[in-house]
């Protein structure tokens, strides 16, 4: 909804805005995501994300000396907030981002794609799922791909949101291949994966 499209780079300041917007988006979509998870899982995705993003939005990263430190503070705050699958994977992603941005106070929008790629790799390693399993991973992968060669915020936002949305649509009628939902693959067909849906909401609602 923001009309700011000028930032030349990703900074700690931008990160803070992103966290606040993410929290706002998750608060508003908490029950919708719980409901989506109730169909395939245990109905807690929305409440978990609302809590996790609240923890991020409260974490004080203003004093962080670089992006690496800011991501690390977020990882720590997120980790304290939950031990759920998705939450832990997001923390894993934040940790990977922290490593990749250590010592940098800003990165260009053209560096976002590899950053997301690094986060994706860490999530795959930690969670043990594969691309194609109908999880948040597929959407993250699509976002990383879409961000290649992008160099400004407005394009990044638009392409990331489109990629996430497209992935959600593409996977809707595919069966879930991880967790318990595997067992009733037919029933998972037609249902949105809650993790993927959450990312989609974050990217269309967020910065």
């Amino acid at each position, binding site marked *: 909804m923001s009309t700011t499209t000028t930032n030349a780079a990703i900074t700690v300041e931008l990160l803070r805005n992103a966290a606040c917007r993410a929290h706002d988006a998750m608060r508003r979509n908490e029950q919708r995501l719980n409901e989506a998870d109730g169909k395939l899982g245990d109905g807690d995705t929305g*409440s978990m994300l609302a809590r996790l993003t609240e923890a991020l939005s409260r974490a004080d990263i203003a004093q962080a000396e670089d992006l690496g430190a800011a991501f690390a503070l977020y990882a720590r705050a997120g980790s*304290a907030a939950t031990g*759920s699958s998705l939450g832990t994977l997001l923390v894993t992603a934040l940790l990977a981002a922290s490593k990749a941005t250590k010592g940098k106070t800003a990165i260009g929008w053209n560096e976002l794609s590899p950053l997301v790629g690094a986060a994706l790799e860490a999530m795959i390693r930690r969670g043990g799922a594969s691309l194609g399993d109908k999880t948040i991973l597929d959407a993250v992968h699509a976002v990383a791909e879409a961000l290649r060669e992008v160099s400004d915020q407005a394009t990044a936002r638009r392409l990331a949101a489109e990629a996430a949305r497209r992935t959600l649509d593409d996977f809707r009628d595919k069966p879930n291949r991880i967790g318990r939902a595997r067992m*009733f693959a037919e029933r998972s067909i037609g249902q949105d994966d809650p993790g993927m849906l959450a990312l989609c909401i974050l990217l269309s609602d967020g910065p």
Partner: protein
Amino acid sequence: MKKFMNRPADYVDEMLDGLVAAHPSLERCGASRRVIRRAGGARPGKVGIASGGGSGHLPLFTGYVGHGLLDSCSIGNVFEGPNLESCMEAIQFADGGRGVLCLYGNYGGDRMNFDMAGEMLEAEGIVTRTVLGTDDIASAGPDEAAKRRGVAGLILAYKTAGAAAEAGADLDDVTRIAAKTVAATRTIGVALAPCQVPTASAPTFSLGPDEIEMGMGIHGEPGIWRDRLKPADALVDEMLERLIADAPAGASDRVVVLVNGLGATPLEELFILYRRVASGLGERGISVARPLVGAFVTSMEMAGASISLCFVDDELERLIGAPASCPFWIVP
């Protein structure tokens, strides 16, 4: 769904406050106070057993901290795994210098956090092993048995591993016992009515007025079939059939039976179920080493029950019968 609670966000912390206030044998600790350990802490020279998991399953997980059972337990929000820090703390609090077995259910979040915790503590010289509860036969086929979720049967592994650790066994042996128990245990559940996550605005799933779901997971994850309620005996017969068809190769003809209430199902009905379980096993030439009937592993106010069979040999039977004492399970 009506709940006795204050702010939904405080559900877990207020529950833990009450738990330790009512049970002085449990001590609440950790930076975010999301670990329960035995009052007095780890016993030097004993192999420690740490568990952990999401809230909403009392007496699991925290209720099984006690002599002959767990040393410590990390606890997450409702249906969410315990966070990394609490897993690290649970392992540290369980450590008596001879290593720690991490024994918990096979769920993604729980596993990731315990794995990370173990990796981080390795540097500090704490040796850990991991055994995952994987008894829910409805959560994956026999060919993918390692992918199954851990449900009510996990407490039997607590019991045997706990007894072995209490008797002085070393980490490898305690690990062996836990793994052997998990490998010998099969569970299937059936749900009659849903539960609701305190922060959610609706129950996790819904069932029609006469509808039930066979094979439902302990968080309300969909099961094998959904149909009209049948007579108790017919349900038990089907559940036993499925459990026995899935029995481990070379299983003994002697079982520990756990007829477990999911939360809202009255004891009366659990005994009606157990009556048929006992006679059904008898008809199949299987004898009952020890029956357990009650609400041992729940999903808050979910209505339903699970049946677990643990095919025991002499070693497991002896360990299941060894003295133990926690707030919700006393073996004299």
